């Protein structure tokens, strides 16, 4: 891991991505310390102010400090991304390995489940679910987990199918090693690399999805700050002030760039075909 990090720092884009991701993550994690104001405290007298020394990104229609809301919005974005991708990754790995290593009938059932999920466009699935059960952060996370599982599961299944016919795996089986040991000690380490790349590339997509749902009022509930809800406020007020739109857009752009650069660098380093320095 340290070796990979060292190599990333030697790539310009990788380093740039790492710096962006680190800054945004630190800002989000330390939002309680950094934010100058309570992100949900109303101050209607100071509404729709432009950037100033007291409000770096101005205020929204309720006089809330936009800089503070952006920082706390980062917590929501990262929480959604990490929890949903982490959970989807875990479930996808287990289901993918079971499909690849298990009997044919189990493979068929799991693949049917994956195909069924994949047949729904993600955004439509999210909108339908939110319309049924109501908007909330947990609904958004659940939707992302369900729709992301097949992405990881399919990759793991393919890798497992390839690895399971290798001689070292067959030797383990002949020696009577348990299936669980084979899966988690021998197969998992061999499939985890591509998954990390995939997950890092998925993070901005998931953050954008959460922001999109919040923009439509179907994500987090008011007054919880989210980059999407900041954008929505900004959109409705764009003729009065551009600052909420700018405040909501900047972190989305930066985090997308950051994770994309970081993911691409990881791919270049981990994928042997693309690895130039080794």
């Amino acid at each position, binding site marked *: 891991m340290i070796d990979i990090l060292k190599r990333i720092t030697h790539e310009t884009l990788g380093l740039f991505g790492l710096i962006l991701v680190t800054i945004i993550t630190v800002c989000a994690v330390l939002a309680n310390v950094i934010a100058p104001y309570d992100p*949900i*405290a*109303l101050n*209607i007298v100071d*509404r729709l102010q432009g950037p100033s020394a007291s409000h770096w990104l101005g205020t929204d*229609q*309720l006089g809330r400090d936009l800089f503070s809301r952006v920082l706390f919005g980062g917590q929501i974005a990262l929480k959604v991304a990490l929890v949903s991708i982490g959970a989807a990754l875990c479930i996808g790995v287990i289901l993918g390995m079971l499909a690849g290593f298990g009997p044919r009938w189990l493979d068929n059932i799991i693949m049917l489940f994956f195909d069924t999920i994949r047949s729904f466009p993600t955004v439509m699935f999210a909108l339908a679910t939110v*319309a049924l059960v*109501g*908007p909330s952060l947990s609904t958004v996370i659940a939707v992302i987990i369900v729709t992301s599982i097949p992405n990881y599961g399919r990759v793991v299944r393919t890798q497992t199918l390839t690895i399971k016919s290798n001689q070292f795996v067959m030797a383990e089986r002949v020696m009577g090693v348990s299936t669980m040991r084979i899966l988690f000690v021998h197969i998992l380490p061999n499939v985890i690399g591509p998954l990390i790349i995939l997950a890092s590339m998925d993070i901005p997509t998931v953050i954008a999805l959460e922001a999109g749902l919040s923009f*439509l*009022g*179907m994500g987090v*509930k*008011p*007054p919880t700050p989210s980059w999407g809800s900041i954008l*929505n*406020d900004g*959109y*409705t*007020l*764009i*003729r*009065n002030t551009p600052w909420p739109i700018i405040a909501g857009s900047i972190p989305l752009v930066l985090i997308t760039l950051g994770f994309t650069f970081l993911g691409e660098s990881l791919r270049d380093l981990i994928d042997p075909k693309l690895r130039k320095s080794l």
Partner: protein
Amino acid sequence: MIKNTAPVLVSDPKRRNFLKTSGALGLAAAAGGVSEIIYAQDKKILKIRTYADMRSLDPAYSQGVVDEEIQSSIYSKLIQYKPGREWGYELDAAESIEQVDDTRIKFKLKEGVMFTGGFGEMTAEDVKYSYERILDESLESTNTPDWGSLKEVTVDSKYEGTIVFSDPYPPAWNIALPYIVGNIISKKAWEEAGGKVDTTTPCASGPYMHQEWQPKQKTVLARNPDWHGGVAAFDEIHIFPIDDENTAQIAYESGDIDCTRVSLGSVGNLKASPPANSTIEEYPSLYYVWVGMNVENETMANADLRKAVQHCIDVPSILQASYFGAAEASTGIIAPGLIGHRPKGKLPPEMNIAKAQEHLAAAGLSDGVSITLDVLNKSANVTTAQVIQATCAQAGITVEVNLHESGAFWSLGDSSSGERYKDIQLILNRYSMAPDPSYATAWFITDQKGIWNWERYSDPEFDKLEAAAKSISDVAQRDEMYRKMQDMMEDSGAYRFITHEASPVIYRNSINPAFRPDGLPLLRSFSSS
């Protein structure tokens, strides 16, 4: 000849371009494209925005002003609202109409008012059928209250009839004859359709016909060539349902629509730098916005909790944050200028946290309580909800805001759409209004529980007053009764009145719009300038 001229033709760029263009046009014509382009260019199309999608083309099931904008364009009434700044009416299908005594209105139809689709001429039988079917209990019309004490319509001759009320019903002139239930449909057509229609209609008699409905996209009306009033101004009217006023403004600025209501927050900027060839006008609104509380909900059944919420809501802050200070606080559901308007409510617009806490203590909820607020997902509403959330928090009331898209929101309180109405605790609502106080109070009687009365408020005295006030001709007495009804609503704790808003509209100078005095469009009277 050909041999000599051919090189000249090829070398002549103008001729070559001409040939190219001709060839292209020829191909397009062969594919049917040219005739379509020319046809489209010749068409006079009015493109207008409504805040919600069409729900029904049956006057019995009309869901308010959006359906009525369409229905009043495709059906005829005896009288129609007169466009302008003062409330009044003008004759439509009626040649004459007269209140002959307290309970009878006599009318005579114009001859030659035709229904499309071969359903013949409009007669007094059609008027009788149209009006009386609204009262038919088996039809379960949501608009029955509009007809008040209507008893029957007697047919005196082919074109003449008498509208008979069991009690005097002055609101008939304001909210029945020129509004939703005043639409006249063809008895023959409706009977052939099984007694009711939904989003299609078998015939029209107004200036336009319903041509197409693309759910959540647009409704298209086409000119009715047989309209008794002459030639309708536009070949087609395209009506786009756009919830959000800012989106509508963008659609207007990009040329997608010709007329729309805009948000109060935009008025200042629009006046400062109006879009080219556009006019902005402001009309006083009759809409009423309030926070309702479901008195049958287990938590909100506690009257002291409801009163605590009333005191927690700071109307001036809402007006500043959500309406940019451009709207006034309301004192009830009846707007200024109408009979029954209260100059002052029983509760001041400002919040009173101390009183809220007193009521919370009386409710046994001194340690705080969590309640939900259901809101239509529209920017002003979401902002209002957050102000309410913040001010309630000061008294120890935690408000969870539930946002809903239009379709889900408008079915929340409808008890025929499932059990969700039971879960409503607080709801931020906004109803349209017609220019008679009875149109406001009619939705809060016991019979409207689960239809439009989402607070499920029920008071026999209120019901009696509501029924009586509609049948009194004495203006002062009516005024007093409607004021008392709003006092009762406020005393119940189930209502916190917010505002009547305002109606700023923008339209292109290429059209001559026609608005009611409250800024709502009368599409049938729009024309091109």
